[in-house]
């Protein structure tokens, strides 16, 4: 579904990604670990095509199509969706408006979703105006529910969310990724798994979201490269919890000496 080859990306003249390779197949959920500043958000933003991320080398393919220089909205229409970490406030544009935009003419149960995400009273408010961190997370997920993308890009979905809401966030992500029916929209999970097409790429700092969302493949991004790729996410998380990222530096150093 998504294939990234030797991706190099510059932000404001600084090289951030230095050769990333990634392959996500339909139905797979990948998690991305890595210390602050390693390039995780840059990778997600580049996949979506935001202008401040400049691809200097490499290719991105989505559903077999080269999207490396495709405008953001064409990628969105092709089936890419992203939850923003710090979205801008849109004055005079209501939640209702942006949900309608996200749905692109499809008939979606906006009111029902809003109710489930405790955002019903937000529908008439300006997008992100005065929203708390947790409200932004839920609002981003609500927009993705309306958009219904095939590949979901999530940047730290658990940060700033209180305990009460994290299970809810997990539930919505599982629905977006066809891992689970949602309360009131039930369908046997076995059936879901067999027919699952939706894929996800989730950045997590703490790994906390993994308690709610099952991931298939894990990667560690360190200094613009994958220091570990294609591992079991739980095992990676355990390593990181035990040793932090200092091991990545050592590991990469050894590999450089070995001429890898």
């Amino acid at each position: 579904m998504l294939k990234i080859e030797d991706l190099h990306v510059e932000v404001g003249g600084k090289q951030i990604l230095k050769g990333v390779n990634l392959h996500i197949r339909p139905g797979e959920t990948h998690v991305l670990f890595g210390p602050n500043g390693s390039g995780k958000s840059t990778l997600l933003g580049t996949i979506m095509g935001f202008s401040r991320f400049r691809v200097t080398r490499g290719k991105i393919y989505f559903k077999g199509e080269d999207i490396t220089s495709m405008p953001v909205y064409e990628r969105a229409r092709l089936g890419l969706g992203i939850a923003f970490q710090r979205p801008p406030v849109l004055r005079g544009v209501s939640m209702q408006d942006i949900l309608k935009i996200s749905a692109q003419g499809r008939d979606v149960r906006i009111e029902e979703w809003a109710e489930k995400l405790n955002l019903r009273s937000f529908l008439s408010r300006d997008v992100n105006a005065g929203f708390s961190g947790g409200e932004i997370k839920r609002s981003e997920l609500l927009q993705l529910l309306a958009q219904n993308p095939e590949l979901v890009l999530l940047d730290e979905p658990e940060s700033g969310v209180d305990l009460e809401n994290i299970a809810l966030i997990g539930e919505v992500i599982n629905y977006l990724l066809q891992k689970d029916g949602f309360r009131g929209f039930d369908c046997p999970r076995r059936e879901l798994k067999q027919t699952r097409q939706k894929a996800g790429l989730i950045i997590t700092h703490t790994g906390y979201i993994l308690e709610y969302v099952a991931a298939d493949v894990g990667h560690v991004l360190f200094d613009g490269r994958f220091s570990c790729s294609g591992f079991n996410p739980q095992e990676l998380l355990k390593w990181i919890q035990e040793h932090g990222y200092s091991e990545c530096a050592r590991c990469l150093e050894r590999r450089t000496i070995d001429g890898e």
Partner: protein
Amino acid sequence: MENKEKLASVASEELTGEEFEDLLRVGVDAAEKERGGTYIQKDHSVVRATILQEGIEILSIGEALQKYSWLEQYWWKAVSPGEDDPRTISGEEKGYYIRVLPGVKSIFPVQACLYIASEGLVQNVHNIVIVEEGAELDVITGCASGRHVVSGMHVGISEFYIKKNAKLNFTMIHNWAEKVAVQPRTGTVVEEGGVFLSNYVCMHPVDKLEMYPTTYLIGRGSTARYHTILIGHPNSRMDVGSRVVLRGEDSRAEILARSITMGGYIVNRGHLVGEAPGVKGHLECRGLMLAPEGVIHAIPELEARAEGVDLSHEAAVGKIAQEEIEYLMARGLSEDEATATIVRGFLNVKVMGLPAELEAEIERAIGLSDESSM
């Protein structure tokens, strides 16, 4: 359009169907559907003055001055005459007189139109609106020039008087031609508990537009709100402001200005003067640059002349943040659609509470402005 037939039926010898269409675009419906009355002036002649609700008076100002001798008390009282202004009353004066009797509430808005049909005409008007005690009035004024008119001049004096606990909701739409100069002078006096809501919209090219309407809140607990939308096209110069003098105790004022330049030169002023204790005023001036060669010069002014005055302002001028555009693009909108959505939100016309057809006309104008800006 379905109005065609209706337009033809109302088109009199004074106005053509085409001209009635021009009026419709500034909110003046010659078919008078859902209107409380109409005043239409073409060049220097009064084409229509009809009243559709009891308790509302609509006349040409010359006629009103002859009919009511007391009207002189309202002549040049809210606006000071300049050196060249004639002070004596001849009875030949043009403009509208609209008065609502005490306690009468207008069901539908009264519409007034000052229309320039002849090339190069200098239109001089002097308008008076009086909302008597406890009365309520909605007025839509559309000022426009005919589609074949290129140049002209519109000079207008408007004096509004809002009595105790009365309310005036005044909407003015301007639709001029590229070489028409427009210089209205407007003064409003609001008595105790009175409310003045003013909406002003100018979206089309104009040569030179200069206005600085002033409201005097003389009564205790009186309120004024100005909401202005300006779209500056290339070769247009607009110097527009709103001023409120808060003279009555506990009076309130709010000035909201939104301007967009597509290459035009816009000076956006605002001035709040607090002269009594307990008054509160807020001024908000926002400008959006949609073309690199345009100018927006925001000049918000606050003037406190008494203790216990609470005045604030907020001004911001800039271009649309790329971040906002890409946010909407990530939800599937093209760059042009995203820009239009942000511009529409920025202008926030909805809060003005305009009639649907007028709102649609503004939406249309914004749609056009996006095409030419990208």
